[in-house]
């Protein structure tokens, strides 16, 4: 079930990325091939960009691929590492949870405004940020539980 979800999330992210790339190709072809610049490609590209980044950060990037500062972590023993990961997860998870309601309000509020060309409500442009905060909360919680049960994969 979990690996199935993971593969689904990956496929969605890759699909968005490909769409972003194709949007650019269409833009360039229209401008240079047919000398007819399209008004909507720039906007669609930026919307897809926000989605790709937030989606991938929320559901695709494994913990070990993120840029981290690990000089201290590498210098201490395993017990201390466990404590560090625990505190770090609580810090990120708690603050993400704290920001969640206000961010959701903002994103919902933006439903009344549409993008200039496509007229897409900004709520649908911005909503993946809410996904990201949610994912941070859930992933931190899961990681905290795993660490408490001595079952974190990151620690090994």
């Amino acid at each position, binding site marked *: 079930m979990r690996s199935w979800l993971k593969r689904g999330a990956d496929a969605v992210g*890759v699909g968005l990325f490909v769409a972003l790339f194709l949007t*650019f190709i269409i833009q*360039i072809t229209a401008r240079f091939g047919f000398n007819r610049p399209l008004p909507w490609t720039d906007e669609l590209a930026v919307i897809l960009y926000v989605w790709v*980044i937030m989606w991938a950060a929320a559901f695709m990037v494994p913990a070990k691929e993120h840029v*981290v500062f690990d000089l201290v972590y590498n210098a201490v023993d395993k017990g201390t590492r466990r404590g560090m990961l625990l505190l770090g997860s609580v810090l990120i998870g708690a603050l993400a949870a*704290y920001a969640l309601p206000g961010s959701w309000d903002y994103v919902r509020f933006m439903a009344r405004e549409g993008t200039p060309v496509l007229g897409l409500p900004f709520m649908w442009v911005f909503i993946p*940020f*809410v996904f990201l905060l949610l994912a941070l909360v859930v992933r931190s919680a899961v990681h905290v539980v795993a660490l408490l049960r001595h079952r974190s994969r990151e620690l090994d």
Partner: protein
Amino acid sequence: MTLPLWVLLAVLVAGMLLRAPIGFSMLAAGIAYLAVKGQDMGLAAEQVLNGLYNSYVLLAVPLFILAANVMNAGTISERIFDFCRILVGRLRGGLAQVDILVSVVFSGMSGSAIADAAGPGLVTIRQMLKKPEYSPGFAGAVVVASATIGPIIPPSIPMVIYALVSGASVGALFLGGVVPGLLMAVVLMIAVQIIATKRNMPRDAPVPLADYPQILWRGALPLSLPIVLLTGIYTGVFTPTEAAAVAALHALLLAGVVYRAFSWRTLYGVLLESTRSSAVITMIIAGAFMLNYAFTSEEVPQSLALWVDSKDLTQLQFLLLVNAVFLVLGCFLDVSVMLLVFVPMLLPAAKVLEIDLVHFGVVVVVNMMIGLVTPPFGMLLFVTNALTGIPIRDMIREGWLFLAMLVALMLMMVLFPQIVLWLPQTMGYGVQ
């Protein structure tokens, strides 16, 4: 310093020391700042989302990442390697010289030092390790040092990000990197020559003349890319962002259609990897939007500018000071953090002193590339170590001459801004 600012710094430093992802630590620090200040949490969403939505130039980043990954997966690196071997392979320490030249060529197609080390760098390391005269440490050191050229010769991801924070022209920055990038190659080649002569490294057997046409032909198509890209950007036919898309398309067509080096599965893997890497870099940028919002509301950059103004620093003193500080910071921090957090703080001061922002940008990016090879936190050392198993200690021991050469060159760039500015000005940048 106000209380909210202290809280922000505390959360940021705590998150980083605890080994939480840097991008998320920055985001969390910004949230904590808003919380203590009693501001609406919607501001967090607003800063991050509007920051990304309004930074059109950032779209170049995922596309350049895609281009580099495609080139690395599609045997394009090998073709460039063979091509450069004809040119400099006969020198003493020939493979090391080839590596530097390959880096120059690859730099003209990719904008990332990491991609350079992981792609063509790995190809040359494998060749060097087959020969007894190249110690693993030396092979690693050469590759790591030459990979720093990647983001100096355009295109360049760090310069795109610098353009975003400074408002300087991407085109002028790209042009400004050409001469410094070529000079980096020259000083590194001199260093290799010195070491190779001292160690009396043997010369390679020449490549048989009969093989020339095939190697040249195989190399010609990839080599057409930098020419297309640079001409396109400088004639204004396409924007740097569009150039990134063209680079990715060119690489895809070469690898997939012309060379048939790609299966659908490989392509999916490359796309997946590119999506993830783009997210990793951009999360740090998103976190930086939060931090910069806080720093700007606390008027940190302005205070720094006032302080610099009160010290009556000359342009030169300021640049030397900044570079010294950045060299030290570069030993401990990631490039993106320095570019996105520290550089915006310094920009008002640089403007007060009327320092040319293109000159400043190119020097700062060179400085950060040196930061990629300085221990304890040197991303290029980590990547090369992870890919080849060469101990970081050995690379450092063999690499000090390269490092010294690069720092000396950077100093020259500070002292003689024309090294950077000559080409952009010749092409019409900033001419009144």
